[in-house]
């Protein structure tokens, strides 16, 4: 084992770009009108016509630097490119262009070295063979990291104790509920004691109690030793706010902002966030942003009740009067008006122009 001193980041990417060929665009039926070719329902029987394949851009020039010992969050809606970035860093996918390093090793040129230092846990993961027990499964995965069996089992027992999973140690995987299976896979990521851990939406679909346990464990784990780094992707704002030292907001494959949650919130400056609950009327995002002093607006309407909820970022309090005037002109009734503390959600709305819902979808106009 030789040691080389050099200046590196735990994770660094440089103008990372990744595109995918969108196969659904390759074939279009002759005679299909715009928009009806996708399902082919109205397509004629003519010969298939080859259309030029469209490239889907998953990452578009991502440059990031994550320091050692950091708990770094990637915040963005579904399809923003978070998982693609993690897959590239985990040596599972090559970038189309650009470069990435983990602990100073180029992920494309030195994957062997990178693999020794990393592990990954994805939310909603269902890995594991049904006929093995939880403890056996975790032992099996530990063997892929060359761990001595005794040491591996010691770590597994310790982690199961901390996560509150010890009672299930000898349960067969096939008997585990989805949440339990996710807990097991979460432990799997830590058994090899990686220097860099990728957590891809680790609390996806988990109940509140389990999510809280997992978040607390991750925070303690990363702070326990200065050389541990976590890259966490999430679309839960509160999770990113609560856990991360720094957060990068990513959308459509681009990093739009990167700083600590506190700084990001401060970046809104004198801007304030306003929430309106409305009944009836036709309030539009376009109409709201046209008002002088309103920077961003997002409106969600419940069709059944006809009620709407608008979130706005306003630059000055003077915008409130014209805002209420516009709402009245639209025939809407104001049920509630709240001026609130700026949250990461407001930062996201301000930067991306859309609101992120609890399922990870971004709603609203650009």
């Amino acid at each position, binding site marked *: 084992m030789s*040691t080389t001193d050099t200046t590196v980041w735990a994770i660094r990417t440089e103008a990372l770009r990744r595109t995918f060929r969108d196969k659904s665009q390759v074939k279009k039926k002759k005679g299909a009108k715009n928009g009806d070719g996708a399902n082919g329902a109205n397509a004629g029987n003519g010969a298939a016509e080859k259309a030029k394949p469209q490239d889907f851009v998953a990452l578009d020039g991502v440059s990031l630097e994550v*320091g050692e010992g950091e708990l770094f969050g990637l915040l963005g809606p579904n399809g923003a490119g978070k998982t693609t970035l993690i897959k590239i860093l985990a*040596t*599972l*996918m090559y970038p189309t262009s650009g470069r990435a390093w983990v602990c100073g090793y180029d992920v494309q040129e030195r994957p062997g070295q990178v693999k020794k230092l990393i592990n990954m846990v994805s939310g909603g993961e269902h890995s594991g063979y049904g*006929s093995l027990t939880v403890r*056996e499964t975790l032992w099996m995965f*530990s063997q892929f*990291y060359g761990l001595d069996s005794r040491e591996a089992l010691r770590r597994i027992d310790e982690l199961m104790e901390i996560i509150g999973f010890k009672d299930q140690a000898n349960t067969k995987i096939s008997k585990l509920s989805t949440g339990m299976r996710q807990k097991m896979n979460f432990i799997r990521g830590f058994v090899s004691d990686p220097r860099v851990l990728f957590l891809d939406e680790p609390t996806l679909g988990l109940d509140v109690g389990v999510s809280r346990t997992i978040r607390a464990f991750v925070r303690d784990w990363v702070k326990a030793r200065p*050389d541990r780094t976590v890259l966490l992707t999430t679309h839960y704002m509160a999770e990113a706010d609560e856990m991360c030292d720094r957060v990068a907001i990513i959308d459509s494959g681009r990093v739009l902002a990167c700083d600590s949650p506190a700084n990001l919130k401060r970046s809104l400056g004198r801007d304030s966030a306003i929430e309106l609950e409305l009944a009836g009327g036709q309030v539009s995002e376009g109409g709201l942003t046209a008002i002088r002093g309103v920077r961003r607006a997002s409106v969600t309407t419940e069709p059944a009740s006809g009620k709407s909820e608008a979130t706005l970022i306003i630059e000055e309090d003077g915008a409130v009067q014209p805002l209420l005037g516009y709402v009245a002109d639209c025939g809407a009734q104001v049920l509630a008006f709240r001026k609130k503390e700026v949250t990461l959600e407001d930062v996201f709305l301000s930067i991306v122009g859309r609101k992120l819902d609890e399922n990870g979808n971004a709603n609203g106009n650009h």
Partner: protein
Amino acid sequence: MRTETRMETTDTVAQALRNNLRASWGRAYVRVIGVNRELSWLFLDIVMPLFSIAAYVLLYRSMNAPREYDGFVILGALMTAYWLNVLWAMAAQFYWEREMGHLELYMMAPISPMAILFGMSFGGIFQTTVRAAATVTMGALIFGVHFSIANPLAVLGIFFLTLVALYGLGMTAASLYLVYGRDAQNLSNLLQEPVFLLSGVNFPVKALGFWTAATACFIPMTLGMDALRQLVFDDKTTGFMPVGWEVLGLVVTGAVTLIGAYKALKYLEDLAKRQGRLTLKWQ
């Protein structure tokens, strides 16, 4: 910028070998332990081939075939079990591993993917041997098949070489299936009965005629079974070619398939990473 230490960890050959062997054993364990855990499947896996043995033996008997043909059927059932294991639990396995989300975990681990394939092979051989041994023993007892083995070591040696070549082929196919996704299942189906036919599972392969039999020799099972038929029943008249040539053929096929598996895996892993298909499910 902050300063940190880059740990250049270079494993010795012995360390690398030990780590990869550990990984192989980890993957094999699933199959080895599975034999004990799923006794109902064990029953089915033994009973099913017994039915097919009975059907083919009784067919031969109804046609007044020589009694040694009963033995050909038993031998055929033995090798059929391994071929099915190679097709479904080796070749198509990487495809299923990807669907289950395991493949990305294997590929991300600091080991050679070949270690996983070796583990799957070892586990598969163990699993199949337990089932096939039970089937063959019961079949031989029920139908009173007489084996006349003059050289048990040669029989074991050829059997071992056949398994190496077969599982080497399975490892190569697993790499190919990595890229060809869902069609893998159809390919496995395509290679089932036609390979039984070409390799002469229930009859001496020379009955297919020289050119067909010679072409079929590219399938390791053909060479292995032809050699075993000659040695197990001590009957050179049914053989397609001398056992020595078949041993040579098996050694060459074994080496080619193992090297082929390594090369194919490296190339196709690279291709899959470039195309982003290594972790793509339901394609």
